[in-house]
C-alpha cells in the first residue's frame, strides 16, 4: 500500500507555531520508511496522524488514493507497534495476538492457523499461554510485533519500538524487524530518533526538524550527501567551516590561504567570492605540513579509532556542541597526538560537502531535498 501525504498541517492549540506547518511525502508500497529527527520534530505526530490518534488541521493523506483523514482509527486496517509495547496485561500471549482477529470475526480455525504461524515467525510460540508481565522487554516487543502483523494490515506503524530495549537486544531486534518486514512485504513507517538505527534498518529516511522534512533519501546518500547542515550534523558528526568560492570554473573553495580545495562535484551556479559552509566528517582528512591548523584539546580511545577533541586555530570553524572533533582509525594510527599539540590537516576534497552560507541548501551536484 502506498501512503501519500499532501500538505498535511498539525496545529496544537497550546503550541505557538504549527507542529507540522505543511508536509508532503510519498511512501512507496512495501518499503520501510523511517521518520528520523530530534524530539519535538513532529515525527511521532505524523505517525499518529497516519494511525488516526491525532487529528490533522489541514491537507489530506491517502492510502492507495483513498483519503483517510475522516476514517476512524479502528477502520484504517493498520498495525501499530508502540514504544512501551502496549501489551494487554490481562490477556496471555496468544489472546493478545488473537485480539485483532477477533475484532475482525475471523473463523476459529483460520485464527488458530494464523496465530500459530505468526507466533512461530516471531519466535514466541513457547510462551503462548503465559501472561505477558513475566516476559522480558524483547519478548514483549515480539508479541507486539506479532499482534500488529497477524491482522494483515495495509500499513505497519512503529513508534520508537526499540528504544526501551537494552543496547544488545536493540541491535538483535533491528534485524528481526527488518527481516520480518521484508518477508511480509508490508509498507512500514518507522519512527526513531536513533540515527544509527535509522541508517541500518531503512529503505528510505525522512530527516525532520520542527515539522519540516529536511531531506528524504536512502541511508547512504543521506549520510554521504546531506542536503543541509542540519542533516550533516544530525546524522553522524560534521566539522563545519566557513569558506569562500575562489574560482567558479576551477571549482575551488578557500578555507584559508594554505587550504584551497578543488571540489569536483560543486554546482555551477555559484559566484566567485560567495561565502559557503564546508562540512567535513571527522575522518575525512589527511595530515599536511600546511593546511587547517588545529590544537588537540583531549583524546579518547574508542577501540576501533581514536577520537580527538580539537580547536581549529587559523580558520573560521563553526563550533557545534562546544567542540570540533576528528577521528583516526586505529589501523592507520602512527602515534597518539599529545594534548595541546598543534598539527595541520587538509579535508578530502571529494568527500566534503558544501552548503550555502545559511547552511540551508547543498551546493553539491544532484543533491536535492527529496532525493
Amino acid at each position: 500500500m502506498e501512503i501519500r501525504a499532501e500538505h498535511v498541517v498539525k496545529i496544537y492549540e497550546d503550541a505557538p507555531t504549527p507542529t507540522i506547518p505543511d508536509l508532503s511525502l510519498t511512501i512507496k508500497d512495501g518499503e520501510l520508511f523511517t521518520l528520523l529527527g530530534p524530539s519535538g520534530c513532529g515525527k511521532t505526530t505524523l505517525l499518529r496522524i497516519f494511525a488516526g490518534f491525532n487529528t490533522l488541521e489541514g491537507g489530506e493523506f491517502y492510502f492507495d488514493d483513498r483519503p483517510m483523514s475522516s476514517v476512524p482509527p479502528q477502520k484504517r486496517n493498520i498495525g501499530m507497534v508502540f514504544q512501551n509495547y502496549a501489551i494487554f496485561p490481562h490477556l496471555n500471549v496468544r489472546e493478545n495476538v488473537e485480539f485483532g482477529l477477533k475484532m475482525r470475526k475471523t473463523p476459529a480455525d483460520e485464527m488458530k492457523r494464523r496465530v500459530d504461524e505468526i507466533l512461530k515467525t516471531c519466535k514466541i510460540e513457547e510462551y503462548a499461554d503465559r501472561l505477558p508481565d513475566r516476559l522480558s522487554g524483547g519478548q514483549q516487543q515480539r508479541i507486539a510485533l506479532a499482534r500488529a502483523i497477524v491482522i494483515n494490515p495495509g500499513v505497519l506503524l512503529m513508534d520508537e519500538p526499540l528504544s526501551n530495549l537494552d543496547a544488545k537486544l536493540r541491535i538483535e531486534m533491528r534485524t528481526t524487524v527488518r527481516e520480518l518486514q521484508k518477508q511480509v512485504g508490508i509498507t512500514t513507517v518507522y519512527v526513531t530518533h536513533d540515527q544509527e538505527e535509522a541508517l541500518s534498518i531503512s529503505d528510505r529516511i525522512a530527516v525532520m526538524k520542527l515539522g519540516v522534512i529536511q531531506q528524504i533519501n536512502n541511508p547512504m546518500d543521506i549520510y554521504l550527501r546531506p542536503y543541509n547542515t542540519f542533516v550533516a550534523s544530525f546524522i553522524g558528526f560534521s566539522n563545519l567551516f566557513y569558506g569562500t568560492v575562489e574560482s567558479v570554473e576551477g571549482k575551488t573553495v578557500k578555507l584559508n590561504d594554505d587550504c584551497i580545495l578543488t571540489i569536483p562535484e560543486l554546482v555551477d551556479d555559484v559566484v566567485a567570492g560567495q561565502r559557503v559552509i564546508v562540512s567535513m566528517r571527522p575522518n575525512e582528512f589527511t595530515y599536511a605540513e600546511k593546511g587547517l591548523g588545529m590544537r588537540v584539546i583531549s583524546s579518547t580511545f574508542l577501540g576501533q579509532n581514536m577520537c580527538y577533541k580539537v580547536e581549529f586555530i587559523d580558520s573560521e570553524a563553526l563550533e557545534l556542541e562546544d567542540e570540533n572533533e576528528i577521528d583516526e582509525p586505529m589501523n592507520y594510527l602512527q602515534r597518539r597526538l599529545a594534548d595541546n599539540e598543534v598539527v595541520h590537516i587538509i579535508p578530502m576534497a571529494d568527500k566534503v560537502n558544501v552548503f550555502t552560507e545559511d547552511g540551508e541548501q547543498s551546493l553539491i551536484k544532484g543533491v536535492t531535498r527529496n532525493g
Partner: protein
Amino acid sequence: MDKARIRVKWKPDFWFWTTLAITLVLILFLVYPLITLFVRAFQSSTGEFTLANFEKFFTHAYYMRGLYNAMFIGVVVTVFSIIIGAPMAYLMAMYRFKGQRMLDILIIIALLSPPFIGAYSWILLLGRNGFISNMLKVVGIKLPSIYGIPGIIFVLILRFYPYVYIYMKGALQKIDASLIEAAESMGCGPVKKLFTVVLPLILPTILAAAIMVFMSAIGDFGTIMVLGEGAQVLSTMVYKEYINEVGGNSNFASAISLIMGIMTLVFLFAQNYVINKRSYTMNALKPIRKSNFSKGMGILAYAAVYAIIIISMIPHVTILVTSFLPVEGKMFRAGFSLASYQTVFSMLGRPIKNTFVYCFIAIVVIVIVSMLVAYASVRKPNALTHFINGVTMVPYILPGAVLGLTLLISFNRDPLVLIGTSTIIIIALIIRRLPYTLRSATAIMYQLSPSVDEAAISLGCGPVRTFFKVTARLMLPGVFSGAILSWVTILNELSASFMLYNSKTITMSVTVYQYVARTEFGTAAALASILTLTTIISLIIFYTMSGDREMSL
C-alpha cells in the same frame, strides 16, 4: 499554509454525552441543593432577604458555644490524633513489627466502624452505670465522666487517629531508602535524620491527615448525639434547629449549615495552599528496609502500640460481648443468650434489608460513574470533567448533616418531591461517598498508558468498546481499593441518612442510634455487631483479593 484548510470538526461523542449526563445529575442533586441552602440562609420565614439568621447565630451565646465547642473539639482531637498516629506510623514503617498485617486491619476497623459505636460502648464501660465505673466504685475510685466534651474528645481521638496513621505510613513507604542512606553517609544521626530529612518530606502528608481529622471531628454527628448530654456542636445544632423550626422552611438550620460549610472550605483551601507549596512526588524505587528494635526500645514500642490498638478495639469487643448477653428490661444480665439477635431478625428485617439494598445500588453506581468520569477526565478532559472533579470534592469535606439538609430542603416540595423515598437516601449515599472511588479510579487511570487503548483501537476495536473491553478491565484493581472504602463508609453512614430517613427507609446505623437513644442496648449491640461484622468481612475480602495492595484514603 495557504493550501492548508483549517478544519474544525468537533462532534459530540460517547464521552461527551456521558460526562454531560453526569454533570446534569450533579447539578440537580449537588449544586442546586447547595444553592438552595445558600438562598435559604439569607431568607426570613416569609421569604424575604434578611441577615437575621446570621445575627441570631452570632449574638446568642448558645450558638456561639456550639461554634466554640466544635472548634475546640476539632483542634484537640487533631493534635492528639497526630501525637498518637504519627509515632505509630513511624514505628511500623521503620521497624519490623510482629503481627503488622493484623494490626493494620484492626486500625482500619477502628476507623471504619459505625461512627457512634465507640461512644455507645464507652457508655457501657465508663458511663454512670458502666461496667468499669461500677467496678472502680467498689474500690472507691471515681473516674471522670465520659459524658460531655472530654468524653467526646476521648472517643473521637480513638476513632480518628487511624487517619494520621494510614496517611503517614503510606508516605513513609514512598520515601526512597537512598535518601536516608545519603543523610546517614553525611554523618546525620538517627534523631537528626528524622527531623531534617524524614519529617520535612512527609510534612504535607501530616497536614493532609490533620485537616482530614479536623473536618471529620467537627462534622461528627453520632458521637456527639450519644455522648453530648446537652453539649451542642454545629452539626447537632443543624439537626435540632431543623426539627424545631416551625413551618419547616429551615432557614436558620441553613444558615448554620452555611457557616459550617464555609468553615470547612476555608480549612481546605488553607491546607491546599500549604501543601501545594511544598509537596514532593516520591515513588520509592528502593523502599526503606525495616530494621530490628533494640531490646529496651522494642518492649516499649510493642507495649505502646498494642496498648493503643487494644484500647481502640475495646468498643468492638464490648459490643460483640453484650450482644450475646441476656437482657432484662433494659439491663444486661450475666449469661449467654441469642435473644437480642432474635429481636433484631424478627423486628428489624426492614433496616437490614434497606441497608444492603441501598448500599448495593449505591456502590454499583459509584463504581460505574467513577470509572467513566476517571477515564473521561484523564483521556478526554474538557470543561465538564473539570466541573465534575471540582464539585465532587465538596461532599468529601462537607459534613454529612449539612449535605442531608441541602437535599432535604431542595426536594421536599414540587416539582420534585423525593423526601421519604429510598431514592433520596441512595442519592445522598452516592454523592457523599463517590469521592473515594473517583479518586482511586483517577489515580489508576493516570498509571495506565494510553497506548494500550490505542493498540486495541488500531486492532479494530472501537473506542467505546475498547473502554469496556480493555481499559475498564485494567482499572478494576485500582478502583477496588477506593470502592471498598466507599462501600464500608456507606454501610456505616449516619449523619446524612439521619436527616433523610423515615420509618420505611430507615437503615441499620440509624436504627442502632435509635435503640441507643432509647437505651435498649441489647438490640443496639446485636444490630451494631452485624454492621461491624459486615465491615470486617468486607475488609478481609478486600485484603485477600488485593494481595499486598494498601487501602488508599
